[in-house]
């Protein structure tokens, strides 16, 4: 079977969640990766382990990831593939259901496991249940939960790069602009260490307490929905059911009580640390190490302590 994977990339390399999707796709068949953008991204994609072929175009139509032309392109390419996959990123989740509907199949979102070519495991109810579903559709259109699949190695492959077909422009939408935060920190879903703040942070300014620890640890910064709702952190920092799903080696929850919707986004982390002044906070029930204390006192101490060798 041939499997088509839609890549996310940063202009020079495919993202780690894309490499997780490649790993999931590898369980299903030979992987063809579709890379839309600079040639450099396609060249690095060709080196990813387990990629048999890269299809590439620099067509400006796909430059901004508009769902309508992108879905049309994927549908035009669908015939040769049994499965179409994308990472469950904002881009993948935006376009894949559109592709599925155009092919008259039910999209299978955010899979956390591959049982066989038709059968997949996916979390429902904020990860409080895992459903095993079998698709009766002739083609499967899938988004992949990156945290559930170890990413394919970035090096080791030597796939051929071929030209992707030219697609139609339905002309339904225009890209006006974007404000993408520039950050030296790693991306939330790819970071080995994530440190997140909750409502107890008290203000957006106070998040610097977390940010400066993050910079010492090379960590990404996350937030609970409560902190996002309160305006302390941007929405794309949100970890949880309706935000990002992360599974780093170390997750540090600071002033986060641990609502089920937040736990849904981080409970697969390898080691969880909870710092909270309420010793009854539910976050402690999933934490490997809990420290009861006032974050404004604990965090500066923590920063000093990790600075010592």
């Amino acid at each position: 079977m041939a499997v088509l994977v839609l890549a996310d990339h940063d202009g020079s390399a495919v993202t780690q969640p894309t490499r997780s999707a490649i790993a999931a796709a590898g369980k299903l068949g030979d992987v063809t990766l579709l890379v839309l953008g600079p040639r450099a991204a396609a060249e690095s994609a060709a080196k990813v382990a387990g990629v048999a072929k890269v299809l590439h175009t620099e067509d400006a139509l796909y430059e901004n990831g508009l769902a309508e032309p992108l879905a049309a392109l994927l549908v035009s390419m669908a015939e040769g593939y049994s499965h179409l996959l994308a990472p469950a990123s904002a881009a993948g989740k935006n376009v894949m259901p559109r592709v599925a509907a155009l092919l008259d199949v039910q999209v299978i979102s955010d899979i956390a496991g591959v049982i066989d070519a038709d059968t997949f495991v996916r979390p429902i109810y904020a990860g409080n249940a895992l459903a095993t579903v079998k698709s009766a559709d002739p083609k499967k259109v899938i988004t992949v939960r990156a945290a559930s699949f170890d990413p394919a190695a970035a090096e080791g492959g030597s796939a051929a790069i071929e030209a992707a077909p030219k697609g139609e422009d339905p002309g339904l939408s225009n890209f006006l602009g974007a404000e993408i935060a520039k950050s030296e920190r790693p991306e939330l879903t790819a970071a080995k260490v994530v440190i997140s703040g909750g409502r107890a942070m008290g203000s957006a300014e106070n998040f610097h307490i977390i940010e400066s620890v993050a910079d010492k640890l090379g960590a990404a910064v996350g937030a609970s929905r409560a902190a996002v709702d309160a305006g302390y952190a941007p929405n794309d920092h949100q970890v949880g059911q309706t935000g990002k799903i992360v599974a780093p080696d170390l997750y540090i929850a600071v002033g986060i009580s641990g609502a089920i919707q937040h736990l849904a986004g981080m409970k697969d982390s390898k080691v969880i640390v909870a710092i909270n002044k309420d010793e009854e906070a539910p976050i402690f029930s999933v934490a490997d190490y809990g420290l009861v204390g006032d974050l404004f006192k604990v965090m500066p101490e923590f920063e000093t302590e990790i600075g010592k060798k």
Partner: protein
Amino acid sequence: MKLLVPVKRVVDYNVKVRVKADHTGVETANVKMSMNPFDEIAVEEAVRLKEKGAATEIIAVSAGPSACQEQIRTALAMGADRGILIEHDGLLEPLAVAKLLKAVIAKESPDLVILGKQAIDDDMNATGQMLAALLGWPQGTYASKVEPADGGIKVTREVDGGLERLQLKLPAIVTTDLRLNEPRYASLPNIMKARKKPIETLKPADLGVDVSPRLTVLKVEEPPKRQAGKKVGSVQELVDKLRNEAKVI
């Protein structure tokens, strides 16, 4: 501008769901049900567009068992003008719901459909995109701002790393993200008024739509439980454990 707002009946946000003993699904008997929170945001946005004079009529639609009337009434109490219930007792997947909505849209001809980005029960994040595909309409998913502009709409979207802005032709589909607005509570007088607003009931067969599921749920299980670890007494102890026991820093 005529607006259509699909709303889903789901297990309430605050309920801790339990997997059924026979592993066929989760327990929904005697559990509090509510409108999907993202759909509340959709209703609120529609009502605000109407209050600003940008919309003339709001139709709330729900597909599911007859009890979905409760969620339609909630939408009517928030400010929607009338409701449509597509009554069906079995499981409805996003593709089936999108087909039902497409059939309703063919009759009602709205200019804009606003719905939640994701239902908090199946977490599929799909109905809006699938509906847009079936209609051949543009989609503005994960919206944090919606403004009528230049004969179409301008949508600000929450994407990885920040925000992006799109101009969509009408008719269009918008799906809501958290920061779009804060939904109002319906006032008692408005709840009373909502009782008099009309709800039309249809069946999938009336709309000529086959709603058979494409996915068979083989089993539903609880995820592996995480064991609570230990409390540490000091920051020094914590850092020591992370360095020497867990070896993660």
